[in-house]
């Protein structure tokens, strides 16, 4: 999809492979196609922005990549596993091991402190309470919120909430970070900080990131930008994130 001479991850292994993926929904008796004959590969360590108008299939594609939904037809292979063959409970287990989610509205548990929110995915592992606490501290440190560990979501700014959500997505060390409009609810400056943090996670931690966004400035932080329209891939391009490195700042 891109020029190997300019792409530092060109030699990386393929993490995600979509072959002739189609997704349709039933609306009454009508069958509505959302994705049609979609072919896509994502290499480990890539940072991909998915763009397109509303109804183009971005979120549906993200849901498929996250194991929240299954394709109607086609092959969906992530990290060597055929997700299109998995049952609901298998997908649930797979999500816990392989994916971190970051949402537009953060989706933190309001009754839990930042550290307890970050600890949630670790409850599905075999880690002891002490080990979980170490992982949580490291994740909060990584997003620059070590000093906000005991704060509840309502005591944090939007940017800080999103950082906690990123820490929660990272804490179990998933193969794939999926972000649905992660800066859609933030002001420009805070959004830039979050995007810079994501760039850092991609470059320094080699996290593979797929981000759905409407915002071209946000998309520009990715290595690659993929445009969808009416459920089909219409264009891909190289984002500024593929060339420049931005510094990461902390706080809201």
């Amino acid at each position, binding site marked *: 999809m891109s020029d190997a001479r300019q792409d530092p991850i060109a030699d990386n292994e393929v993490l995600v492979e979509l072959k002739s993926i189609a997704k349709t929904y039933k609306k009454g008796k009508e069958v509505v196609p959302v994705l049609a004959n979609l072919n896509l590969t994502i290499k480990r360590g890539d940072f991909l922005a998915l763009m397109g108008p509303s109804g183009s299939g971005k979120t549906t594609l993200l849901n498929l990549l996250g194991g929240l939904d299954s394709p109607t037809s086609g092959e969906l292979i992530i990290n060597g596993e055929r997700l299109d063959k998995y049952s609901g409970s298998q997908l649930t287990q797979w999500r816990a*091991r392989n994916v971190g989610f970051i949402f537009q509205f953060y*989706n933190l548990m309001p009754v839990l402190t930042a550290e307890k929110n970050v600890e949630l995915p670790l409850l599905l592992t075999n880690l002891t*309470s002490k080990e979980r606490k170490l992982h949580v501290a490291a994740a909060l440190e990584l997003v620059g919120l070590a000093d906000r560990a005991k704060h509840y979501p309502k005591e944090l700014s939007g940017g800080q909430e999103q950082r906690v959500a990123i820490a929660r997505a990272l804490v179990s060390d998933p193969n794939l970070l999926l972000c649905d409009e992660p800066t859609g609810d933030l002001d420009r400056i805070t959004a830039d900080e979050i995007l810079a943090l994501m760039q850092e996670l991609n470059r320094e931690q080699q996290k593979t990131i797929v981000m759905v966004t409407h915002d071209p400035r946000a998309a520009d932080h990715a290595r690659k930008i993929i445009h969808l329209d009416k459920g089909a891939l219409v264009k891909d391009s190289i984002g500024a994130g593929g060339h420049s490195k931005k510094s990461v700042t902390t706080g809201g």
Partner: protein
Amino acid sequence: MYYLFFIIKNLGRKKARTILTILSILIAFLLFGLLRSLSVAFDSGAEIAGEDRLITINKVTLIQPLPFSYLNKVRALEGVENVTLANWFGGYYQEKKNAFPQFPVDADTYFDIYQEMYSLPAEQMAAWKGDRVGVVVGRALAQKFNWKVGDRIPLVGMFAQKNGSTSWEFVIRGIFDAKEKRADTSMMFMHYDYFDKARQFGEGTLGWLIIKVKNPAQADQVASAIDGLFANSFSETKTSSEKDFAKSFAKQFADIGLITTLILSAVFFTMLLVAGNTMAQSFRERIPEVAILKTLGFSDAMVMFLVLAEAFVVVLCGGAAGLAVAAKVIAVLSDKFAANLPGLHFSMAILLDGLMAMLLLGLLTGIIPAIQGLRLNIIAALRRR
């Protein structure tokens, strides 16, 4: 610990609603503890009654007497170890509100048959047997009226004496104690011989027979033999185990068990609706959060467990507090009503029944939101955000 912390935190979101729900459950289980204890107390005569004792009454009704001659006829039957008699006296002390159970009995045999339930010092027994107007009273009754051995007790009886007076006077010759905690010591026993000779009407009859059988396994045959012996006579009999007799006697006043069951059914049904609605409402408010848990990889079963656990915590908090208050109240009441309701106490069986009721209520109130959680579609739920 994390999950318990999470559950408690979730319940703390709407503190007023949670507290009110817990309070209403507390009241339900307080009623449960009180009414069940009361029901057991009324039934306690039946509980402690041994299967080796039979009661023979007139087939028509308990208040119809039996001929005195039946005593020796029954005694002669095979399988009968001992037999004694009793009659209703139906008197009161000073005022009608001071009514208590009094029974003319045969002093020689009555305490033999009930020797595992009551103890009476030998010298007091001898003193009683030696005094025609002597009586023995239970410890609870003596304490209630501050009676002691030697006191003269005037009673107004249901039966008139030959001189037409219903005033009777007795002398306390002994105070008996219970060997079993729930044995009733609020009674008075007087001599049947004296009572029978002194009363104006009904001489030569008795109220009921109490039979001790040699082998409890043959109690049915003995009962049939007794009733067969008097079949087609002027006074046919009905013989049953003492347990059945006590139950039917208690039911003469009211079917306390049925009343208790009906009240508690109504209370728990209402509670089911109240707590069930609260849990359903609480779940509906958190559908997107439940969807996030599932997105993170929490299984359907785990989500179902978390929702159910919340219902159980609410019910167990309210229920345990309700039963604790009931136990305290019953402890106070059992002292106060020791004479009238000697079996009144908060038993382990009631506690276990209460725990079972809590588990059932928790399950029923939590099951609908838990199933909704189980079936929750993540994508649809996240769209609600």
